[in-house]
């Protein structure tokens, strides 16, 4: 059963998460004119941020052993090929995840 400490941590983590999401909107409120560099930046930021997320998801890989990177590499190739072939996100995500689970549970 969760105790008081668990509830305190839950509250702190929830508040901290919300703070990171609200911060930009508090720094640059809707009514005020935004600097031009910020508007230009916000146009190119999404492409860079998604690229960053992909790499962030792969932060745990290492190259000293084949099992350190091959499952991720193979599964990402599967995701990409499936997606370039059918362009069905469900198929690409589902297929890639099943492939990865088989690789880490049975093969490596």
């Amino acid at each position, binding site marked *: 059963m969760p105790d008081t400490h668990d509830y305190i941590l839950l509250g702190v983590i929830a508040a901290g998460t919300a703070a990171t999401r609200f911060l930009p909107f508090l720094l640059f409120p809707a009514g005020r004119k935004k600097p031009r560099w910020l508007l230009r930046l916000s146009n190119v930021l999404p492409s860079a941020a998604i690229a960053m997320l992909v790499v962030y998801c792969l932060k745990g890989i290492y190259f000293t052993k084949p099992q350190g990177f091959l499952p991720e590499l193979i599964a990402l190739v599967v995701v990409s090929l499936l*997606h370039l072939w059918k362009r069905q996100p469900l198929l690409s995500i589902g297929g890639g995840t099943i492939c990865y689970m088989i690789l880490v549970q049975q093969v490596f």
Partner: protein
Amino acid sequence: MRTTNKVKVLKTAFIDTLPILVAFIILGIGFGVLMSDAGYPLFFVFLMSAFIYAGSMQFVAVSLLASKVTPLTALLMTFLVNARHIFYGLSLLERYKDTGKAKPYLIFGLTDETYSLVCSKPHATDDNRTAYYFTVTLLNHLYWIAGGIIGNVLGNVIPFNSKGIDFSMTALFMVIFLEQWKQTKNHTPALIGIAATVVSRIVFGPDHFLVIAMVIIAAGLLLLLQLRKENEDYA
């Protein structure tokens, strides 16, 4: 708004969020199983998914709870893991500008997945844009809560090897990355994103590289925009 419009928005939002439904149910199950293994009951899993509502942070939270860290440590860890959300807000300042009463909830629900979907759908028409954003955010929130509950129940009933299930998040971002690559002509921002993050990860290790990567990306993009502007001036 008329009812037919509402149905149309719900339908579009549901179709657009289907990949996230799959990823969130799978990931949510992963989280629910972990929490069940750690001995936490259903309502606590529900509270976490409903009020924290941040995938990777909740996985981190399982270990924070288990090791009974101090609230300050938990807060610092939260800032570190979720600092990337600052990027999302910065790029949506304009798009979320006129969303009225829905705005606080839209910002609260700005997960990686909701952000990437909102970014990749610039064509949502103006008169029902807020309704569309709200529906997408709400559906994703519900999928996530449902996944956690299913996982927690499953984890208590049947032994289930969920190892590797978290790859669905990587696969989801890869798909969005490919879509965005196809839709944009200039790939320099995406390449800056990859290069800065890879270099930071190699230099600073897996635990503290993301904030540094964000600073490098912001600096790199601003430099790129400045160069482009100068070229325009000469053209």
